[in-house]
């Protein structure tokens, strides 16, 4: 378990389709994040779904999105 936090949820409907970001869940660890994601975003019949801790997503070209603070670093005012 990685500890309390937000997990971004990605999924695709068919093999070969790109993964797309479909939402997020709050979970106290990896195992519950998997369950919460599957149970929360169950309106579609997904071929594949995965979760990523929000803190592990590193933005490339923008710092003003939900993941911007990861690029700036925890506690960094910049």
């Amino acid at each position: 378990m990685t500890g309390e936090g937000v997990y971004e949820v990605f999924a695709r409907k068919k093999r070969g389709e790109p993964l797309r970001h479909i939402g997020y869940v709050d979970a106290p660890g990896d195992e519950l994040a998997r369950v919460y994601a599957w149970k929360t975003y169950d309106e579609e019949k997904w071929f594949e779904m995965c979760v990523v801790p929000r803190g592990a997503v590193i933005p490339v070209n923008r710092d003003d999105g939900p993941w911007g603070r990861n690029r700036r670093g925890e506690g960094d005012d910049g």
Partner: protein
Amino acid sequence: MTDSAPSPLARHILSLADTKRLLGIRYSDWILGGPSIETGIAASSMAQDEWGHARLLYSMLKRLGYDPFEVEHTRPAERYYSAPALDDPFADWADFVAATVVVDGALSVALESIAGGNFPLARSRVPKMLAEEEYHHQFGAAWFQRLAGSGGEGAARVAAAARAMLPSTLAWLLPGDGLYRDLVADGSALSLDAVRDRCEARLGPTLSAARIRLDDIEPARAGWDGERRRGPGAPAEEAVERARGDRNRDLFVE
């Protein structure tokens, strides 16, 4: 429903169906009021799974000579075959978590016991139910281990809840009576030893987080009701009224 005692297979299926129907109701009580939005959504989804499985199981009884509508909508509480741990509402979130491990886990083992047997409807329908149950198992295991490992009040409460549910649930899962032996003898279900092994494999690792060993738990067989495959008592009337759909019976359309 027929007036005669159920066949071994009918008792098993009805016991599974009623337990799933009641478990769905108990889960649904926590769609609001759990620790987070996500737990409420999970409770809602798990309740739907249980009700869907119950409906499929009730429909299997048609093949065994029962009228599924009569079974679902007309029986009084004292004719329910559900596991006694679900007779009363969960008092708190620790009860909910313990039930996902103990009762939902035992239900999955009981389903596994007929998945490879000689009842064709079980062979075709149960595997999908078990696949859906895997998320219940992961949910229960993660929450149980989290609470049990917290060392605080949560640890004490979830351990106490599991200990309270285990004796009656083990008796329900492992009915060492003639009807169950008949079920095994005709190839419909796994032996009690095999069921016990699967129960240990499924529940044991999670319960160990609260230092609970299944070998130390004595199944509660006092007052055993062989026809209903459970100990004495019955689910609370309010839950049975919801299970039967009494309040809106006049609006029932199918």
